[in-house]
């Protein structure tokens, strides 16, 4: 029986997390947001870098707090035999184990699937690696932007005719984590039906490739190797990001000729473009694609003298897909995201309020999300006492030898 009844579809599922940095913790966060009891196993001897990077207080590390709300923390030193025994006891009372340690680390620790399966035959064991756990390149390691480069994402992002620029450096870990969460939950469904657990081996690089599946199909279908094309789209034009006043940018995507005709009326009516621009060469999509440089130039010269929010409002009223490109100030003050409680208040270990980023879903029977990330070892009493059933004397002995610090 898990501790708190937060509801949600994964109520009653217990997850042990042996994870570092972002991708593995993100998987755990998604499962926690779905109602699972997610336990991060930590130790003073090998703290996650996000607990210590650039901060003096390991219980107040912004990066850690960002990705670990609604989790429990227990301290077990996995570099001691006694610690490993404790961990195996914990896994024996759990449903899922997630790990994203370096290649070979779980084998060295004695926590590989075979060992875990021996003590908990129906465990769902989710292993996350840059290239997955097996194969000729599985020894290689890297960080998020490496996943994006290897998986084919980076090559598709850049200005037309120029070298690839890649997505923002932060992209990849969370997508990888979401893919791992999906496979984990599917494995849980199977276990619920059949009583059988399994080993789930997730590749970060393949998670990236799965975000561009149609571009890969383009190659297997016709041998076309896609490259970066700025903001252009093969089936829409205009489709771009255009300058406005005050260094702001507007995104405009014209889906069909009808939307184009509406937009063209606006362009014609505008004093800055109406007289000198011949819009007749943009009538059909093939024409607009053939003259796209001129089309984009025409739009940019029209948008640059306007305020982005006013132009968005006007074009939306006309049924045209137009939105601002939101900077970080606008993003955290986005009224819509606050109204939908995407940003939400949770409470920290000492009762203090904290704003976190919620999940990408709303559910009619969702789990409550009200607790911030845990302090180191905040749930030692619960895990050692209620879950593992250790006596006070046993705990004192383990504490004395440093196993549970």
């Amino acid at each position, binding site marked *: 029986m898990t501790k708190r009844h937060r509801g949600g579809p994964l109520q009653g599922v217990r997850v042990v997390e042996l994870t570092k940095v972002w991708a593995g913790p993100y998987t755990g966060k998604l499962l926690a947001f779905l109602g699972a009891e997610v336990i991060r196993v930590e130790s003073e001897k090998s703290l996650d870098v996000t607990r210590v990077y650039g901060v003096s207080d390991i219980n107040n590390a912004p990066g850690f707090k960002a990705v670990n709300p609604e989790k429990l923390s227990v301290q077990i030193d996995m570099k001691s035999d006694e610690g490993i025994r404790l961990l195996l006891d914990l896994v024996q009372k759990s449903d899922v184990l997630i790990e994203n340690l370096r290649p070979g680390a779980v084998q060295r620790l004695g926590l590989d699937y075979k060992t875990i399966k021996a003590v908990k035959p129906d465990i769902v064991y989710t292993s996350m690696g840059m290239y997955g756990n097996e194969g000729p390149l599985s020894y290689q390691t890297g960080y998020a932007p490496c996943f994006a480069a290897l998986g084919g994402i980076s090559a598709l992002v850049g200005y037309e005719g120029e070298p690839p620029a890649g997505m923002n450096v932060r992209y990849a870990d969370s997508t990888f984590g979401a893919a791992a969460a999906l496979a984990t939950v599917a494995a849980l469904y199977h276990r619920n039906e059949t009583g059988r657990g399994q080993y789930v081996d997730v590749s970060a*690089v393949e998670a990236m490739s799965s975000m561009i599946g149609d571009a*890969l199909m383009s190659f297997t279908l016709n041998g076309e190797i896609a490259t970066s094309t700025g903001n252009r789209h093969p089936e829409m034009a205009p489709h771009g990001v255009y300058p406005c006043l005050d260094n702001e940018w507007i995104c405009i995507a014209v889906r069909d000729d009808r939307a184009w005709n509406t937009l063209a009326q606006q362009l014609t009516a505008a004093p800055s473009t109406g007289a000198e621009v011949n819009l007749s060469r943009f009538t059909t999509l093939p024409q607009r694609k053939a003259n796209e440089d001129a089309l984009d130039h025409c739009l940019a010269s029209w948008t640059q003298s306007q305020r982005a929010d006013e132009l968005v409002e006007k074009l939306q009223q006309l049924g045209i897909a137009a939105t601002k490109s939101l900077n970080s100030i606008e993003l955290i003050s986005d009224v819509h995201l606050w109204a939908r409680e995407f940003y939400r208040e949770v409470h920290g270990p000492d009762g203090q309020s904290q704003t976190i980023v919620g999940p990408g879903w709303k559910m009619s029977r969702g789990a409550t999300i009200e607790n911030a990330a845990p302090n180191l070892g905040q749930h030692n009493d619960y895990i050692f006492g209620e879950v593992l059933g250790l006596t006070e004397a046993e705990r004192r002995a383990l504490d004395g030898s440093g196993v549970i610090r």
Partner: protein
Amino acid sequence: MAALSGVKILELAESVSGEYCGKLLADFGAEVIKIETPGVGSPTRRMGPFKVQPASAPGSKTSDARNVDVESSGLFAYLNTGKQSIELDLLQNKSILSRLLSQVDAVIDDHSLEWLSALGLHATQQQHMHSGLVVCSISNFGLEPPQDRLHAEDLNVFHSSGWGFHTPTGGDPALPPLNGAGRFLPSYEAGLEAALCISAALLAQRQTGEGQFIEISKQEVLASRVDYVLAQMVGGDMNVSQCRSAFDLSGPAGIFPCEDGFVYIWLSAPAHWQGLRQLLGDPAWMHEFPENWLEKACTPERVATCRRHLVQWLKTQGKQQAAEQAQKLGVTLVAVNNAADLVNSPQYQFREFFVGLEHPVLGNLKYPTVPYRMSETPAKPLSPAPLLGQRQTLEWQQPQTQPAQVKHND
């Protein structure tokens, strides 16, 4: 055996996000029946890539809407493997819909609130009339978007999530911020999130008999994917600004040209610098840098000098060979791969990331699959996308084919 064997899903979705969600669940062995507009089919059937010189084949239909063979889209083929297709005008056949709903476990939709309401499937209706059913809606900004976000494509969603304004890293403020990779990244992310939520809800449904109404907002899915940064910003722990580099990390990491393409190099720790010294053969210019400069003395001048020398060295290096050497020395250098590199990757071949399927019109093609290998229940497409209206019967008890039950008895 497949993970979601026995699960029945009705797919009303007609765009990339919902179809991708259905595909992911079909890969797990769920029986996914797709409802398509009679004679026309899903709009994704009329989106590229198309097979060049499409072969005519029995059973292939030409759509009235845009004179495109409805069976020649590589996009549709990719998004709909393992599904079955029924032609049905839902709004005209609500009694049939009602019969279908009583037989399925979950519904995937990506239309508007008005559409869902017309079918009797919005949140309140689900709770009262179909309380045991899992219904998932995917939309750009949620089912009730604000007036200034009624119309949006994936480009708009990407730029409403923070990713757009901050792409690429180190972007030139004079140039437009960029779209994400490919045409549909926001849709794939949302489809992935939807599949996760549906799978979890199906598990709960098996245990409690209760359904769930799930609403996926693409904007929120994408914004939640940058939680590490965004939560720090909204929590007051990281600066926000109008600056295009607000999400960035400093340092010389980045994409560099090489002899046959591009590589990505990550440098952030003294160990990386020591490995690089070995890789480059201890060149003189590196002696002028402090050993710990990446962590403690990362000035713009040093970054520029380092980058210049890396560019010089890479001129004579092939991307895969350089990566192999570098990785052995602990240097985080990787190839910037394209589609051909991925199809030819020994790692992808080992893990069988691409699988071949025979489609009656498109022929035998390699399909990219999913990033997880599961020991008990391999997740793979087992049959190609259906021809429009390929399935004739509405009865679930005796389906024509059972893709979920094939093979996998290992």
